[in-house]
């Protein structure tokens, strides 16, 4: 039953210590990277354009090669 399952998940998280956690004191506002996109505007169809790796994307991936 949905209610029971929800309770199970909630109990699991609470038992793990989330809920009483002190993380809230460390909430931060910097580093936000997403914004509202109310129209849900879809990006260009990747299949129509193939994968478009811009120069900065390629540069970023280059720096991550190990």
């Amino acid at each position, binding site marked *: 039953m*949905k209610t029971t*399952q*929800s309770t*199970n*998940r*909630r109990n*699991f*998280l*609470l*038992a*793990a*210590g*989330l*809920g*009483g*956690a*002190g*993380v*809230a*004191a*460390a*909430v*931060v506002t*910097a*580093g*936000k*990277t*997403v*914004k*509202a*996109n*109310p129209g*849900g*505007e*879809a*990006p260009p169809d*990747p299949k129509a354009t*193939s*994968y478009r*790796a811009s120069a*900065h*994307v390629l540069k*970023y*991936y*280059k*720096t*991550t*090669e*190990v």
Partner: protein
Amino acid sequence: MDALATAVPLKRALAPEEAARGDFYALFARLLHNGPNDALLRAIAGAAPIPADGDPALAAAWRDFVDASSVMDADAALEEYELLFAGVGKAAVSLYAGYYSGAPSIDHPRVRIQADLAALGLAQRENVTEPEDHFAGLFDAMRVLVAGGAGRAPASLDEQRRFFRAHVEPGVSKFFAALARAKAANYYLKVAALGTAFFALESESFLLD
């Protein structure tokens, strides 16, 4: 007073465990976006402990992370961040989920992340130059889905689960394992341990409805 006459949209209070999840995502997004500054280190140092009868790995990792934050210097943290993640030519540890999930160059995860964010009413901010599979961006998206923000209410658990399993879960444990192995990691070893503990709980909790 004018303020009393102004209509204010009511927000349903988030359950404390969901608020804590949102806070964890905000914290990881911030720590992977840049090194912690003094204000953040102080805030973490003053944070309350996770109850000892909670998940032992999470409680211990949080305690170590809080202790490390209380003695960490922001300049040293920034230097460590740059050594780990922003090395010229080769970063010691990749911050990109696609790196850990074996992303092909065609149908790369960043393309699917863009589409999934759009379907959720979200998009990357214009001033963000990193590709969408940067873990800071993925964690910030999860923060919004869990706690609401960026003009939207919290997402349903099903929506959270779909985004998590498609874009976060495939690479996140490998990422924190790589961070834990990095020679340059010191403060970020504590971040790695905390991330490992938290995301193990996240994966397990998503098995429950």
